[in-house]
């Protein structure tokens, strides 16, 4: 499978070893083409317009919503288009969260990305809630054995990452859903790191909210999705006010449109949505069984390679079960920025730092890690370059 040639940035330079897809993936020609067609042949504002460009733009935009819904086995009216995961989680923290009462409890985890921590802290402070965090095991997984003690009748929401952007661990959502159901709590899943790795039946997860970003799944930046169970969305008041999300407006009073429109105030990121629709279409055409195998083979190579480097310590599962191809490691006392910088001399793009997960860094008493993430376009040459670079970093910084 040579996917690399479908990605103009990668195809243009064989010397680039892009292992930073966990931050932002690269984008295939098919997505660029869809956006280009919009900008040069369909561009207009959506909804309300009757001229041919407005009709074409609306059809492309709503068509994209349809493709996204289909790819995730959802319904169109459950797909709220946002500017990204962060915006999606904040939407829930306001529209759902502001309905909570002082003393109500929210459970998050220590593995979370800041975008699944800070909105809940702000909500806690706004509404007088209690915020608890599930601990993380030495292996870098959410410790679900703590669910029992932490989830109570006061728990109204459990919010957690499907896959960790640091350790690569995949969470056992079924257990979380069962614990939540038992007390009538809702479940929000941060799927930012899960969605780049293949199709997913979101409704089948049994969760209430699922948030993700386009830029990590081969689409443009500035677009993302909040999938919400229909009954949940229908029960929620709007968050942002503006055009499109209304039914009627007078200066005194406004009535609101049904979901998903109710949550999409203002002119949307039309080209972004079209790009995300195209990314879903592009992903649908791939053989994900083969890709998953290949991603795990390459992940295994990274783990094996690091095991042989003196001083290297993987932060996350050492096996290939229930994990994605995101591998974080520390290299002796070396600062991850130095490591990432030396990798860059080998053309290897890795992220170094706290990965917006400071509580998790505190958990492992680390300043940060260096992270390599594997995507469908990753090849053996990328792993070779990574391991060579790590070796040089060890020699220079060790």
């Amino acid at each position, binding site marked *: 499978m040579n996917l690399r040639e479908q990605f103009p940035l990668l195809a243009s330079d064989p010397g680039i070893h892009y292992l930073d897809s966990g931050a932002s993936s690269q984008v295939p020609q098919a997505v660029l083409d869809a956006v280009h067609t919009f900008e040069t042949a369909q561009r207009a504002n959506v*909804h*309300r*317009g*009757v001229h*041919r460009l*407005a*009709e074409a733009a*609306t*059809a492309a935009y709503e068509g994209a919503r349809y493709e996204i819904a289909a790819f995730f086995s959802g319904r169109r009216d459950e797909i709220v288009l946002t500017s990204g995961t962060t915006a999606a989680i904040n939407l829930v923290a306001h529209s759902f969260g502001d309905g909570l009462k002082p003393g109500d409890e929210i459970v998050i985890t220590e593995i979370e990305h800041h975008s699944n921590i800070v909105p809940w802290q702000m909500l806690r402070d706004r509404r007088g809630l209690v915020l608890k965090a599930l601990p993380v095991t030495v292996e870098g997984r959410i410790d679900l054995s703590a669910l029992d003690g932490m989830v109570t009748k006061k728990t109204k929401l459990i919010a957690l990452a499907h896959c960790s952007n640091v350790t690569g661990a995949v969470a056992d959502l079924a257990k979380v859903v069962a614990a939540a159901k038992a007390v009538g709590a809702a479940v929000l899943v941060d799927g930012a790191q899960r969605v780049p790795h293949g199709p997913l039946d979101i409704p089948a997860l049994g969760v209430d909210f699922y948030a993700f970003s386009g830029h990590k799944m081969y689409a443009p930046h500035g677009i993302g999705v909040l999938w919400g169970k229909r009954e949940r969305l229908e029960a929620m008041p709007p968050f942002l006010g503006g055009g499109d999300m*209304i*039914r*009627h407006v007078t200066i005194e009073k406004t009535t609101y*449109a049904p979901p998903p429109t109710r949550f999409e105030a203002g002119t949307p990121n039309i080209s972004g949505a079209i790009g995300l629709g195209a990314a879903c279409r592009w992903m649908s055409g791939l053989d994900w069984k083969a890709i998953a195998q290949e991603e795990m083979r390459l992940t295994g190579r990274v783990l094996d390679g690091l095991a042989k480097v003196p001083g290297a310590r993987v932060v996350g599962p050492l096996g290939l079960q229930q994990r994605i191809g995101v591998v974080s490691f520390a290299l002796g006392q070396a600062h991850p920025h130095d490591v990432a910088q030396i990798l860059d001399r080998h053309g290897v793009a890795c992220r170094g730092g706290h990965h917006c997960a400071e509580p998790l860094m505190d958990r492992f008493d680390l300043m940060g890690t260096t992270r390599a993430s594997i995507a469908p376009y990753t090849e053996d040459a990328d792993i070779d370059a990574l391991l060579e670079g790590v070796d040089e970093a060890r020699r220079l910084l060790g």
Partner: protein
Amino acid sequence: MSDALYQDALLKLAKEAPRRGRLEPNDASVRLDNPLCGDRVRIDLRMSGPKIADLAHEVRGCVLCAAAAGAIGRLAVGLDREGVARLAAEADKALAGDAPETQELQAFNPVSRHRSRHDCVRLPFQALKQAMGVE
């Protein structure tokens, strides 16, 4: 080309629009609006058993909406629930681009190419169905 949209048959339906106005007293009256375009429709019904004995419609809206109400004014008297459901299905057929059997509804065929206008045609039929308790 969308020229066909405002052909004579459709403009005539909208202009002549038999049974325009209100019916008081009535057995059922439904008002619907489409906030997206501002169309507003009211349908009043007087029943004779299960069938529509008389009706009236009032539209503040576009030509497509007025023409749809006009078609209802011309076609709906004498229908029962089933007949109303069939009539509305015929209108949907026209919007889907298939030729409906009901001659008068063929005027809506060209709207099929203009998705943003489908609801303009549907609104009066929805009001009628709601007034008859269909669905």
